[in-house]
């Protein structure tokens, strides 16, 4: 399935990023916005009207020309998703809100950030309904790549259907994804699990230096490493931190900037003791995050102070740090009258995320810490897809691990998008707290502030309050994910957004 509008996982986006481009892109190795298919842009003072000047001389892989009309066709197509297509277009729903004509249960229109797009010569004029700090960065998400209108129509791209417990996709998504990138779709060899991309010679920028990229599916982590060692593959993504040191000697280990966050969530819904800030603080003091980061996480990993990594705006070190202090934790528990506290602690199995390479070791370390200060634990482990995520969203555990890898460089992507603190009914149940509504409006207000300096100051304030007054979760760490390539493969720049360009890799002699 190669239509990025319907994709949500990194595995799908990896080939898409070589084949397609958005209006804006990100500077290699950073999460900062740079021009891509839009050469430049201006916006009205209220931040509601955006004029994107479309780059000239760009052609899609099917030979058709990119123009402002094609851009608007794409945005309108995304906005007009219905039925199964709307269910699948999750990045749109997460970032833009509703679809055209979409009603909620009460029959009201679901608000959408996107209003309209009109082509005016070589300019695409995009109107949005409210100012947000995320715009236009969110247009750089791979899901919002600009695809060939001709191919989209010809291969019936919107025809996504639900059949049984699965979605079916049209020929466009399966066999004819058509973008503007340096590589074009070759074929998908299902028998071998290999996706083949070929160089697109009509690319507007620097032509790809490689003639072919093959993406091979190897589900087992050790098998990936052994395939690299045996020379079967030229590189693989997300090597286990435990292997970094041994890989470094013989391979190019590219370490991405840590653009993620792992946190211990506190769900205040079921256990009244957790409604007491002192108890939540005691939990924070009990965790030996420093030792955990040093012993289990790769170099470059840091103990998290805020709810997002330090490269994101509004980050501040002036927050309550909660340095490891088991005595203080015990004292706080005594003050709160909770010396005999039992908590339901959940952790996930069958999963490895960039922010949490090995959930079991995370759990082992912190469960030992909590028990050391006298908190009793009722442990539940569930498969990630087999009940863990469902349970966490249904407010079942008291304590749980979760995290997030940033989509782009804005605080709201973490605080609003991932933690959902702008919605009182979240997995921490902040809505049940006297301060829940305040927090939600503070998060929303910061996101809606058009003035950059003011906005950042608001986030600094918010981060301080999150640590000292609200504490719905305890940020644990930001951990850099890596990418490993054979020694003779150079020229790939590691990106915090996993937005790597393999088309311009340089293959030297072995």
């Amino acid at each position, binding site marked *: 399935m190669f239509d990025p509008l319907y994709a949500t996982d990194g595995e799908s986006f990896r080939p898409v990023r070589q084949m397609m481009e958005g209006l804006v892109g990100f500077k290699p190795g950073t999460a900062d916005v740079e021009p891509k298919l839009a050469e430049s842009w201006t916006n009205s003072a209220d931040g509601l009207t955006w004029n994107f000047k479309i780059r000239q001389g760009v052609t899609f892989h099917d030979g058709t020309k990119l123009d402002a009309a094609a851009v608007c066709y794409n945005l309108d197509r995304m906005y007009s998703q219905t039925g199964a297509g709307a269910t699948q277009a999750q990045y749109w729903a997460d970032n833009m809100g509703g679809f055209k004509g979409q009603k909620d249960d009460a029959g009201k229109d679901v608000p959408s950030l996107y209003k309209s797009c009109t082509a005016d010569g070589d300019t695409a004029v995009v109107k949005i309904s409210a100012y947000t700090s995320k715009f236009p960065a969110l247009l750089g998400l791979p899901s919002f790549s600009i695809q060939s209108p001709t191919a989209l129509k010809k291969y019936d791209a919107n025809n996504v259907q639900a059949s049984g417990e699965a979605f079916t996709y049209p020929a466009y998504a399966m066999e004819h994804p058509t973008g503007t990138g340096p590589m074009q779709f070759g074929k998908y060899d299902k028998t071998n699990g290999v996706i083949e991309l070929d160089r697109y010679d009509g690319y507007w920028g620097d032509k790809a230096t490689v003639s072919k990229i093959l993406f091979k599916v190897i589900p087992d982590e*050790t098998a990936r490493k052994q395939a690299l060692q045996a020379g079967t593959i030229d590189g693989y993504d997300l090597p286990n931190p*435990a292997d970094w*040191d041994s890989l470094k000697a013989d391979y190019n280990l590219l370490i991405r900037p840590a653009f993620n966050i792992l946190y211990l969530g506190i769900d205040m819904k079921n256990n009244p003791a957790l409604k007491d800030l002192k108890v939540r603080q005691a939990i924070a003091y009990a965790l030996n995050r420093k*030792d955990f980061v040093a*012993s289990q996480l*790769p170099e470059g990993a840091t103990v998290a102070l805020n709810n997002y990594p330090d490269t994101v705006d509004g980050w501040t070190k002036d927050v309550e740090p909660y340095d490891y202090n088991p005595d203080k934790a015990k004292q706080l528990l005594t003050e709160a009258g909770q010396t005999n506290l039992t908590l339901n602690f959940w952790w996930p*199995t069958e999963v490895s995320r960039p922010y949490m390479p090995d959930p*079991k070791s995370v759990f*082992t370390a912190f469960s030992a810490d909590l028990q050391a200060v006298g908190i009793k634990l009722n442990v539940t482990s569930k498969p990630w897809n087999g009940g863990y995520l469902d349970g966490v969203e249904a407010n079942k555990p008291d304590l749980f691990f979760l995290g997030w890898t940033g989509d782009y460089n804005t605080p709201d992507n973490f605080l609003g998008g991932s933690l959902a603190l702008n919605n009182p009914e979240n997995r921490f149940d902040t809505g049940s707290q006297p301060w829940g509504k305040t927090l939600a409006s503070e998060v929303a207000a910061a996101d809606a502030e058009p003035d950059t300096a003011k906005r950042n100051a608001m986030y600094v304030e918010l981060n301080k309050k999150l640590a000292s007054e609200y504490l719905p979760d305890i940020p644990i760490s930001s951990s850099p994910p890596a990418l490993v390539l054979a020694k003779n493969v150079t020229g790939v720049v590691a990106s915090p957004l996993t937005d790597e360009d393999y088309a311009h890799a340089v293959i030297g002699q072995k």
Partner: protein
Amino acid sequence: MVGLTKKKERIDQLAASSATAVVDPTDVESSGGSILADAWRRLRVSPVFWIGAVIISVFVLIAIFADVIAPHDPGELLLRSQTRLARNQLAPPQPGFPLGGDQLGRDLFSRLVIGSRQTLLVGVFATLIGFTGGLILGTLAGAFGGKVDTVVMRLVDVLLSIPSLLLAISIAALFANPSQTSVIIAVSVVQIPVFARLLRGQMLAQRESDHVLAARALGVKRAPIVFRHMLPNSLSPVIVQATLVVAISIIDAAALSFLGLGSQSVKVPEWGQMLGEAQQKIDSYPHLAFWPAGCIIVVALGFTLLGESLREALDPKNRR
């Protein structure tokens, strides 16, 4: 299951051959005694038996006295400060820690010692449950025959028709919270049909045997016949099978752990689980995988050797 005729036949044959051996001479009591003595005579000189017996005894002793032998709490992160995973650094062997620390800084030696307990538990309980389940089904089918037999055996055939590991995986996955118990149940259910068929074959052979016919002619009730005559005489091939099943259970449990369906307890170590966790780090830290793997192989081998030597010793063909 229709294609299972041969699997069934083989189990039935095994049952029948040893059954006839037990009841061949009409005087059951004395012949039973002589068979055991006979078997023991052959076992005593069998190196295979002794190797197996020694391995198992050592293993069981370690498991029983694990608390005394293990120098540390297997769950405590004692060597965490010496553990730097990303720098390829684990706590090395040192006084008090003969094998060093594991990936989290826990004492590897203590984990192996305490882990023997779980492995023994899996082996023994899986076998016991499999045996008991098989005993109930097999006795029902064998003792009553007719419709009961048909119904029970159809059920058994359904279970036999699914490849055993797939069945175990399916059962293990049903548990929302995977644990040692779910592993034991998954591994044991797979063995129930095997035991059931074996016992039923035995019982059928016994039903037609002279001493049961004689007892029935004398007016002895059904229950005493089943429990005093038929069951005891059916057990010898079952015991052989049970010994082998201990080994199979231990290996199957390890496979479940490898697939992430094993015990997720972070407090109680288990060899299969340790091997499964070390798997992903096998070439950075091979010893983390080799120790538990070696333990599993040696213990499974021990039970297999014992089972094989018992089978040889009890095999009527060897008495010619």
